[in-house]
């Protein structure tokens, strides 16, 4: 169990597998973040917690029984269903190839995030990180966007049903958190807030301002679509215009944050233009909001992030540092760079900060468009909240 108020849930097995050779989603990122934090003296080995196992029953609190059976069968060559059967569930595709032990490994990811939520919900930790988690695209009966099981949804479901908590989910991945949103679209006890590159330009093509929740959950889905090339300042302004108001209004008992690291300008899969400075703004605000609203309780997961070696480990090191109130040195520890650089075949950055990219010539237009979207979003939400006061 965790030694202090902060838990870093980690299972080395979850950092070792590959979805397919050259697949952009690289689980080694969790190991890179962990070793970087240890080398920087910002993580105490006693804070590293192994996940507690979960069963298929836990997966079925969110996923369709048939789907779980298909994923399980697909995980061993002898029982693998036909391609058309798999493809009906989004598997055996370029994004979600089937691989050996897929069911067991991804269930392990879910277990890590469930463990993080359990630790925080029961007061054994104040805040916890599950960097292998963050598989926000997985749907009830379908794999999507590199995600097979939705660890976030299973963990949030458990926080609501077992621990009786109201949960605010905040997603700062460059992609819309569609799976989590749809799984709780009618649920008044879960607020989902996603900031992302607009679905007009980027996968999964959803997350528009008019997606606001349904039925009893009306007003509990919030989407802030960002223009391509959004930079640190405009992102921070958008975050501050939307997230604090939505969370204060909802008054959660727990914040679950999906901290995908693909808003960075170097990310090869998205088109935003943040640096680590803008991403740190979100991490710091999330911790402040937890201190203000939930007695500090916060669970943070990973997610996307495809500049996997140079950017993601530093982003998640900053996220953990914010969560656990640690300082990071200016320089990335040389021992870490020397250990991993040659193995990964890249020159790893020497500093924890980074330089902003060339400012986009459309910088002001981008900022003004984001500002106007945020204003209209909040006006629309205020109207909905007045009609249907959050329970």
């Amino acid at each position, binding site marked *: 169990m965790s030694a202090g108020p902060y838990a870093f849930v980690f299972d080395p097995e979850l950092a070792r597998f590959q979805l397919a050779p050259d697949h952009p989603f690289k689980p080694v990122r969790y190991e890179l973040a962990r070793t970087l934090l240890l080398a920087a003296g910002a993580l105490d080995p006693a804070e590293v917690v192994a996940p507690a196992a979960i069963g298929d029953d836990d997966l079925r609190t969110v996923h369709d029984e048939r789907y779980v059976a298909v994923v399980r069968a697909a995980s061993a060559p002898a029982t693998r269903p036909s391609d058309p059967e798999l493809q009906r569930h989004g598997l055996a595709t370029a994004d979600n190839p089937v691989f050996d032990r897929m069911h067991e490994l991804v269930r392990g990811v879910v277990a890590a995030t469930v463990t993080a939520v359990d630790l925080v919900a029961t007061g054994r930790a104040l805040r916890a990180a599950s960097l292998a988690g963050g598989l926000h695209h997985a749907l009830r009966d379908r794999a999507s966007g590199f995600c097979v099981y939705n660890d976030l949804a299973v963990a949030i479901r458990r926080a609501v049903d077992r621990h009786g908590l109201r949960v605010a989910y905040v997603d700062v991945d460059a992609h819309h958190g569609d799976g989590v949103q749809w799984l709780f679209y009618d649920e008044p006890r879960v607020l989902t807030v996603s900031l992302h590159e607009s679905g007009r330009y980027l996968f*999964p*093509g959803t997350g528009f301002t008019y997606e606001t929740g349904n039925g009893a959950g009306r007003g509990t889905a919030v989407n802030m679509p960002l223009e391509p090339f959004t930079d640190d300042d405009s992102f921070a302004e958008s975050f501050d215009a939307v997230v604090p108001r939505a969370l204060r209004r909802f008054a959660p008992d727990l914040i679950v944050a999906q901290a995908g690291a693909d808003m960075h300008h170097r990310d*090869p899969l998205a*088109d935003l233009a943040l640096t680590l400075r803008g991403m740190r703004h979100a991490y710091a605000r999330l911790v402040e909001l937890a201190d203000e609203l939930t007695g500090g309780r916060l669970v943070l997961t990973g997610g996307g992030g495809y500049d996997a070696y140079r950017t993601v480990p530093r982003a998640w090191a900053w996220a953990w540092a914010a969560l656990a109130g640690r300082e990071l040195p200016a320089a990335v520890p040389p021992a870490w760079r020397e250990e991993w650089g040659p193995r990964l075949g890249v020159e790893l950055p020497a500093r924890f900060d980074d330089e902003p990219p060339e400012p986009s010539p459309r910088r002001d237009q981008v900022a003004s468009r984001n500002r106007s979207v945020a204003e209209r979003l909040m006006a629309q939400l205020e109207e909905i909240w007045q009609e249907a006061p959050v329970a």
Partner: protein
Amino acid sequence: MLVSDVMTRQVVAIGPDTPIRDVQALMEQRNIRHFPILESRAAPGQPDALVGIVSDRDVRLVGADHPRAPKGVRAADAVSKLMVRQVVTAHPGDPIEETAKTMRTRKIGAMPVMDEGRLVGIVTATDLLDALVTMSGVRQAASRLEVEVPNRPGALAELLGLVADRRVNVVSVLTTRGDDETVTFVLRVATADGHGLARYLREAGVNVSWPPDKRAGP
């Protein structure tokens, strides 16, 4: 996609003798904007005849102090005094894009759907808009690519062949604009790695205008 895929089958129809004020009440209660008007025929076994249609706008203007209010019609009158008798109808097998075009040119908001003289449904502009949204593929998680290809036979087939090489499923294809030389297609493709696919297409010589060219990560 056909009208039968998108129409409402539970149609609320009224008789020509229904007082207008009852129609007003029904519109409010049921939140319906268009009522087909049916008259039963003398011969047994014959379906009711469609004799007219009335919309919320026609009904609301009755008795209103408005230049377009129908003259000499009162709320107590039968709806037959108000109804439009030349009803533009659709067939369940009509393609929805044709139906949408008819609605636009005739400036109407709904069409009763008739099959062999029998009212089988109603299709509204909202139904068609929903259908077009579905056809454009935006309900399924996808990346969006804008691709310009030469305006010649086989160009789209070659493009889709390249997409298939990457084991990526195509969710929808829209044509946005074209001139004599080129056609621009918007492809919605079932992959989160739209940039990876765009890179592959560019390497094969395809002109991709979205997403932007980005140097790959490590």
